[in-house]
């Protein structure tokens, strides 16, 4: 395992927190500093999506399109046709929620390097309720040919991911969360598109997390280890293309796995892992996420507990899973 330079405060109450969207805002501003081709478009949510950092630094390359998400991505597509690298941001419920077909036709079939930033994804949006808690974006974006799908685990990683997609010359989707969350990586922690990272080694079961859920997996692993259960935690920030080698090699070692995502389990991250595993190396798998239901209003922590997404719930699900499901060792 190469050096990951993770935060030394993982599991401590005083671990610094910051919203993932802030990392996006910083990364976008930096991408704009680095490359004059980078432009940014927003649909009346400039501060919410943290695009104001870019807007203030590069006002001549910032475009306000108003509350019009179909126009947001198609104007971005036209700008990409002129050699620009457009970042288009809104809440994920509206982009890609409302403008999926425009993304399919004018970004993906056209193969233009438009970067869709979907903020306020997941139930951690909190009080706004089900309409604004986007849970189907991973499924929507993962199904599109040419599209790269990334759900960073914290704000520092979001900054790196934003800089990376500014350079990848491909249609890309980056999933962002609203609420402040633990910063468990550091500026030195590696990030590459298409790479998953084993954050913690173990041999009884693999927890595969994406987005905010990776930190909950790390906390769950700590709880379980005190009980003598050895848990491997794999962080999968890039959902497409999936790092098949890392996922399969961990599951080959532990013989069973659990995926954890703040999204519908149908078509999402867990589905991507299940598709891979069932075709290439059938291994017992459980998917934690939203179980074919919508979110509701509440505090993020309450909602995580209610939907089984916090560390305690993940630990409980893991205990139950390993009691009922023997490790499967490949011949």
């Amino acid at each position, binding site marked *: 395992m190469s050096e990951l330079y993770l935060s030394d405060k993982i599991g401590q109450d005083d671990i610094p927190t910051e919203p993932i969207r802030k990392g996006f805002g910083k990364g976008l501003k930096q991408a704009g500093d680095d490359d004059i081709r980078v432009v940014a478009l927003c649909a009346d949510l400039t501060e919410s999506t943290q695009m104001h950092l870019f807007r203030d630094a590069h006002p001549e390359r910032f475009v306000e399109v108003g509350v019009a998400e179909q126009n947001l991505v*198609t104007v971005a597509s036209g*700008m990409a046709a002129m050699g620009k690298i457009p970042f288009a941001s809104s809440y994920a419920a509206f982009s890609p929620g409302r403008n999926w077909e425009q993304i399919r036709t004018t970004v993906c079939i056209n193969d233009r390097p438009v970067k869709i930033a979907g903020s306020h994804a997941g139930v951690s949006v909190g009080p706004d309720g089900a309409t604004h808690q986007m849970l189907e974006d991973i499924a929507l974006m993962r199904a599109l040919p040419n599209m790269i799908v990334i759900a960073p685990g914290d704000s520092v990683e979001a900054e790196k991911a934003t800089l990376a997609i500014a350079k990848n010359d491909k249609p890309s989707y980056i999933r962002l969360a609203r609420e402040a969350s633990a910063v468990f990586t550091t500026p030195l922690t590696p990030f590459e598109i298409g790479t998953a990272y084993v954050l913690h080694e173990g041999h009884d079961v693999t927890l595969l997390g994406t987005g905010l859920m990776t930190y909950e997996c790390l906390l769950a692993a700590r709880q379980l280890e005190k009980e003598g259960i050895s848990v491997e935690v794999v962080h999968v920030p890039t959902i497409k293309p999936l790092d098949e080698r890392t996922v399969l090699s961990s599951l080959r070692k532990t013989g069973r796995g659990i995926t954890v995502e703040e999204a519908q389990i149908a078509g999402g991250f867990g589905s991507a892992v299940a598709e891979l595993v069932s075709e290439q190396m059938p291994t017992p798998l459980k998917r934690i996420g939203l179980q074919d239901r919508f979110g509701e209003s509440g505090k993020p922590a309450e909602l995580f507990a209610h939907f089984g997404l916090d560390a305690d719930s993940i630990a409980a699900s893991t205990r139950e899973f390993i009691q009922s499901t023997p490790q499967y060792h490949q011949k």
Partner: protein
Amino acid sequence: MSGQLSLVQLDEMANTIRQDIIRMLEHAESGHSAGPLGMADIFAALYFSILKHDPKNPDWDGRDRLLLSNGHTNPVLYATMARAGYFPVEELMTLRRFGSRLQGHPERTKLPGVETTSGPLGEGLSQGAGMAYVMKYIDERPNQWVYVMMGDGELNEGNVWEAAMFAGKYKLHNVIAIIDRNNIQIDGSTEDVMPLEDLHGKWESFGWHVQEVDGNNIESVIDAAAMARAVTNQPSVIIAHTIPGKGVDFMEYDYRWHGMPPNSEQAKEALRKLRTLDGKIRSEHQ
């Protein structure tokens, strides 16, 4: 080559494009007839007079951009591009066939010279506005234009009006939209399916410069485009009134020909009508 044809030669070119359209659709056994025939004069005007472009160098950075937003009318785009020299005329007969660069709806990544993938309606104007925004505010390309060809039926789409607001707000004078106002869509006449009038007033109220022309009169179309290029503080729209199925009398004005190709009998008759200008002249090909 382009920009040098006389008005008579442009009329002949439009007629040739119409014959290509009939042959392509007959051969493909599927596709749309009425719209492409009605738009042939506009396309002859665009590719042989209005547009700055280079068929031998389709990616030339200084070219004007033409986006076909109503992608289902692409037989007229392909026929005109072939006649302008983008690819061999014989390739037109591969329309909608497996392995062809001439997909059922235009695809940018398949055929050089196609500016964008289209078919799903209402998406061309906003892409054109994005291009024009770059030309006007970021790269400063003062003498370059974005033409967006739209159907009237597709104006039902909300995306069109989002784009209209956007181009109006940013005074994108370098956008010139051309609406093929042929009054038909799949389910019937536009005013029965979803009324568009007062169309002129709608665009004006969004901050656009509006002209109405006879879209089957090539000189009128060329003049309107020149007028639009002289407007420097707002985007322009040309409402081009056309006859659907123009040039083939049994297709004209009939919405049922919107989405239907001619069979071989009908194609033969259509080609005879086009070659003889509906009996006014004799054709050596008869």
